[in-house]
């Protein structure tokens, strides 16, 4: 039973992380810099959705849609004000990353300034979960997995079946060549920011619905999201999903592992049980990230 529950928990976590990793990997791929503020964009959207549903009394799904749209525009706006200028004067991508770190610090605290650091929850009732093979899952969690899956399918179609997707891939391969083929790369970059931010909002809102909402949440999930994106291979959306899945399983399995069989050396010793100190759980994603970077910095999947 335990193993089924672990699989379910991992699937939920992976659905949430992969939507965030998707946007991150896209920006990283096309603009060649790691956007440290990515998860804070998502959180901005989650807070907006919270306010729309609370203050205006809009249905949650509508609130999320509006919030995703607004945050998409916000992503474009930040690009216009900050990154575009730096791109045109031709600074190194590393500078963009440092700017994004500044954006992260500022945005996280602006969220705290506006919505205060108090914990918030969406108006979703806690209901009795369904039972599957002895494990439990709530309707909301099922919905999260479904939405996560559908968003991935939508993303696939967007990337492969539309001219936008083709243009985007062309830019990612070779910006100069793409421009030569009359692709307006600035326009494409604007769209990319919109989609990356909006997808992030869906992921961020799902996390906040499943759990709680507070301003530091964005920074807390930043490293796991980076981990998923890099693990899967930057620039590969399927990699982002795969990375999120692996990470989610690792996080859930590591604590459940019992290493007694390993240390007892076939009956030589008799340890009751050897388990990893639960205090190290946050280190799981950090360590996976470091190991991936050390041994396979290109990630598991190659860029298409």
């Amino acid at each position: 039973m335990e193993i089924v529950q672990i699989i379910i928990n991992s699937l939920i976590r992976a659905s949430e992380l992969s939507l965030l990793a998707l946007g991150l990997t896209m920006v990283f791929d096309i603009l060649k810099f790691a956007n440290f503020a990515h998860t804070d964009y998502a959180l901005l959207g989650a807070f907006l959705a919270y306010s729309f549903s609370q203050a205006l009394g809009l249905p949650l799904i509508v609130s999320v849609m509006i919030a995703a749209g607004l945050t998409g525009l916000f992503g474009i706006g930040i690009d216009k004000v900050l990154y575009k200028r730096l791109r045109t004067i031709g600074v190194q991508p590393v500078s963009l990353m440092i700017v994004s770190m500044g954006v992260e610090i500022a945005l996280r605290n602006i969220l705290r300034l506006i919505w205060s650091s108090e914990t918030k929850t969406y108006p979703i009732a806690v209901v009795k979960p369904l039972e599957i093979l002895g494990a439990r899952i709530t309707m909301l969690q099922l919905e999260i997995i479904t939405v996560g899956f559908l968003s991935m399918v939508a993303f696939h179609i967007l990337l492969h079946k539309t001219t936008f997707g083709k243009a985007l891939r062309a830019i990612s391969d070779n910006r100069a060549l793409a421009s030569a083929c009359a692709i307006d790369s600035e326009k494409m970059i604007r769209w990319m920011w919109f989609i990356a931010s909006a997808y992030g909002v869906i992921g961020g809102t799902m996390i906040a619905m499943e759990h709680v909402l507070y301003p530091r949440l964005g920074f807390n999930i930043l490293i796991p999201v980076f981990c998923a994106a890099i693990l899967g291979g930057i620039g590969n959306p399927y990699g982002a999903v795969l990375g999120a899945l692996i990470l989610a399983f690792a996080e859930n399995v590591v604590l459940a592992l019992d290493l007694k069989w390993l240390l007892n050396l076939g009956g030589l010793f008799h340890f009751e049980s050897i388990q990893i100190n639960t205090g190290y759980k946050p280190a799981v994603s950090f360590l996976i990230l470091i190991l991936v970077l050390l041994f396979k910095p290109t990630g598991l999947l190659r860029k298409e």
Partner: protein
Amino acid sequence: MTIVNFLIYFLIMVGIYALLAMSLNLQVGYAGLINFGQVVFFCIGAYTSSLLATKTGLPLLFCFLLAMIVSGFFGYVMSIPTKSLKSDYWAIATLAAAEVFRLVALNEGWLTGGPFGVMSIPQPLRFLFSMENYPLFYLFLVTLCVIIVFFALALITDSPFGRDLKAIREEEDLCLSLGKNTRKLKLEAMVVGGMVGGLAGALFAHYVTFISPENFWPIETFLLWAMIIVGGRGNHAGAILGAALIQIFNVSTRFIGEYVSLGSDSMASLRMVIIGFLIIIFVSYRPEGIIKEKKKVYDPRNIR
């Protein structure tokens, strides 16, 4: 208990942050190594020195030296992946590594005291001074360290070694083509940076006489980044100026608090919002910082 005492305390903290900022500046401003885990040196230095002092009773001078050596060694370890990793990947890895270290300090209670930290850390030459005069002595000690480190780093960066580092920062391939072992050079920069950071950590631990994992959140790294960005990268005076300015800014909000009717929560957020904006504005519009990196000018008449 006068404002002079506060001033002394404040200057000691500025000195400690100045050491950390100079250390970061050597890595970022000279060698172009984007280290987002600078706080790890601070952490290792503080823990090494205070644990040696409290558990082995080693003379404090040796504790300080060993703190520097251990931090320097960790600088070496951190430099290993710079060979194969792109700078932004490495930056993310350092952020994760620093968090892993904090978690080790938190969870390995048998060594580090866990969440209780290390207490009753002895102070150097404490018996020579009265309670009132000791901070003044410590200020002298810290100032001495800052001056020594300043001149030592100035000698180092003014030498062919410093020139090599700057060249790596800008054109690594060129350095390789000129027969420079860039990996070794980066390693040396990281070791020196680690040693200075470790010194700062030891000075901090023996000053406050109590350290715990709560001292080493990633936020400290971001503050250090703000210092070198505002002060000016690629020159040591800039790092010191930045440390002083950011510390003044941090403390001054406590004093403004009495005149501005803002809640403390908002005040704390606002402070970090401004730090974030400072990073964004300086990197975008004045990347060289307040004090510009000095150009080395030769007078042709002096050459022959």
